[in-house]
């Protein structure tokens, strides 16, 4: 009975967090001179009103859920993998590289795409392992290591775009030369969405869900995350498991980068990660280790991104307004949870 009421209390507090986030965002809208109701209406219609709206949501959802799923692994091990952005970027770079290598060969396109995706996963994993190695062997906190490597990844992208992988003539911020359509993940006719990438996203969530729920590996990662000292004394080689969690997250972040190349942009562009790594951090924080919830929260966040796109055209309002709501949701939900714990302690 007591447990039940505390569950309702928790839900009540989380709802309060959502309401506060909406209230704060509304306040910002009012201050910016925008009509709040119309703005929210536009976001909703933009995101859900048409098949292309929903398919666009899914285009954003796939890389977002991939990076979120990866981050759930590192979060479980108690690690703040801020470097996820760079890992997405490296995934995209590796995929682009492999696609370029096989561009003018007779290798069947499906194989090139597959190799490209695998290479992307490898690239993300390597970049993540680097963060892990810096932490384990160099004593560099993963937050600093990851942040540093994010900058390096961005610089690397720019160098490739304006250097070795330059478009014929002069390099441009619009990226490398687009790949021919045979090297794209097959798309649904008339829409930007590829059913294959959605399958990849769902598969990744399921794998992470099973991993954390029903495997020794997942249980050990959780033990490391919740009490690294006790986990070590129980006999878990904690450094090794931290590396494994970075590796796992890197694989999925790399996959997100690969999807950005083979299913969305079909080339390497300067901000190929589109901030989905950071957005994934927000989603992962919000769902508190629950992989299945992440599916829906990530979709909600993706649809906010898409829904806000037409705001500049209709209301002369910057589309970053969706970012405010996304950020505020996390802040207020976490804050309300902190308040709840404080109140319950007394």
């Amino acid at each position, binding site marked *: 009975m007591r447990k039940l009421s505390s569950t309702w209390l928790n839900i009540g507090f989380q709802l309060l967090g959502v309401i506060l986030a909406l209230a704060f965002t509304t306040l910002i809208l009012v201050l910016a001179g925008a009509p709040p109701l119309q703005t929210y209406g536009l976001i909703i219609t933009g995101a859900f009103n048409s098949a292309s709206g929903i398919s666009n949501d899914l285009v954003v959802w796939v890389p977002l859920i991939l990076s979120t799923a990866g981050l759930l692994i590192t979060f479980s091990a108690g690690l703040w993998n801020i470097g996820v952005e760079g890992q997405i970027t490296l995934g995209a770079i590796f995929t682009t590289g492999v696609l370029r290598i096989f561009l003018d060969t007779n290798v069947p396109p499906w194989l090139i795409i597959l190799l490209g995706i695998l290479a992307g996963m490898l690239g993300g994993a390597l970049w993540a392992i680097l963060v892990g190695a810096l932490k384990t062997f160099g004593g560099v906190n993963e937050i600093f290591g990851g942040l540093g490597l994010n900058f390096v990844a961005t610089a690397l992208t720019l160098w490739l775009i304006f250097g070795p992988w330059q478009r014929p003539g002069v390099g441009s911020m619009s990226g490398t030369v687009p790949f021919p359509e045979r090297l794209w993940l097959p798309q649904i006719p008339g829409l930007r969405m590829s059913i294959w990438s959605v399958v990849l996203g769902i598969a990744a969530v399921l794998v992470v869900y099973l991993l954390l729920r029903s495997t*020794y590996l997942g249980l050990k990662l959780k033990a490391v995350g*919740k*009490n690294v000292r006790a986990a070590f004394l129980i006999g878990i080689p904690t450094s090794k498991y931290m590396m494994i969690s970075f590796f796992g997250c890197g694989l999925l972040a790399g996959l997100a980068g690969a999807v950005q190349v083979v299913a969305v942009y079909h080339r390497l562009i300067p901000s190929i990660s589109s901030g989905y790594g950071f957005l994934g951090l927000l989603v992962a924080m919000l769902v508190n280790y629950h992989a299945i919830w992440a599916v829906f929260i990530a979709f909600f966040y993706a649809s906010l991104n898409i829904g806000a796109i037409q705001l500049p055209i209709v209301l002369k309002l910057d589309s970053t307004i969706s970012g405010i709501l996304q950020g505020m949701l996390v802040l207020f939900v976490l804050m309300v949870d902190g308040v709840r714990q404080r109140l319950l302690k007394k």
Partner: protein
Amino acid sequence: MLIETKGISKTFGTGSSAVHANVDINITIPSGMIQGVLGENGAGKSTLMKILSGFIRADSGQILLDGKPVDIRTPVDAIRYGIGMLHQDPLDFPPMHVLDNFMLGQDGRLILDPNKARDELLRLEERFGFSISPESYVDSLTVGERQQLEIMRLLWMGVQILILDEPTTGISAPQKEVLFSTIRSLAQEGKTIIFVSHKLEDVELLCYKVAVFRQGIFVGEMQPPYMTEKLVEMMFNKAISLEKHEPSTMGSVNLKMSSLEIEGYRIHINAGNLELLAGEVIGLSGMEGSGQELLLRCCAGLIRPVAGQLMIGSKNLTGKPYLAFLENNVAFLPASRLEEGLVPGMTLMEHFILAEKSRGFFLDLVDGRTRANDRISEYNIHGTPSTPVESLSGGNQQRALLALLRTPLNVLLLEHPTRGLDIESTIYIWRKLKERCSKGTAIIFISSDLEEILQYSDRILVFFSGRVSPPLEAASTSVDQLGQLIGGKGWEVFSRQGEENAKA
């Protein structure tokens, strides 16, 4: 300044696991007094000092300064009332300059006046005969110098009542002399000194009177001339007696130390030679921080020895990592159950699964639940497989830790295996441990409970400031003898033996 406490009480935790750290403490300390406070670990002396200095608040009771009741909520309040505390580990800032550190805590000034502060610092140094350069970094100072700096800082902040917590731990003999003369001169000018220590000798040498604490209770006071035996009795007297001592049957050598030396943050331990036999129990006795924790953790592979050799069975594991020790059936049970032993947020069943060797990739939850249920009933843990460990009581957590141990074990290393447990749980846990001994496990354990040490050990090592006694036969050692050794008295007997051991 006259300081009085009236009926100070403090309880940690609730229900059956509640610890009464201070029970109705009434104490009066006039100005100019050097008041000693004696007591074993957990006797409540630190709790009282933390209440006086504002780190924690009492549940009930009053503090009076010069007869006026005061409300001390934070350390800042305490300083404002003139109460300052020198912590055992000085609360200073190693990466800062001495002068910057000295100026910290000065109230209500926007702009610093380093020149004035420097003059003040040098004046204080001259007065007490210290010599610390204001420009040097705090982390280049010795512990003794850091204490001196902290004392000067507190004095400059206008402290009238100075609490010193175990100040003679880890400082050199000349520094101790300087410290004592400083304390005496401060008392002479009317400051009130509270000197918390477990070192009988220091207390007897310095203090004008001594208060003894035991299990949260203020037992009584003594003035010179001090009777050491009486003080020891006041500190360690135990009302409850445990079971009869039963010697173990012993087998082969499970652990062997040769000329083992360990270095800690402030101490160097010369553990020498020791052979631990199968079935044997060795108790490590001494005040916390005297080196026994380091030796135990060294035997577990958690700390590397700086010299010597450590054999487990016939294998030389010197310098090998902890996991290698674990593979050779050495187990270590830490004192802080929820910090190092268990994983808060995870269930009993998850713990039992983790402690087993993984079989395959996927968890077998059905099997895990069955095994968890078996262990829970075997070890009499009040919980279910899905109980999160943090919601268990202390005794149940300890039994859970025991239930997590692998079988067979060659060496079992226990830090305070029964700390905070009631007598019933204590007896239960030792019965389980002795069961393991009868199957060939050798045990080394630390306890601050002398009765427990004498009761369950076959041999005892006493630690005092990094010194290790030769193994004493438990059967022929008395509580009194042990108490004196822990307080640093009666070590002369070993000096000759000790030298021989060091040579061997």
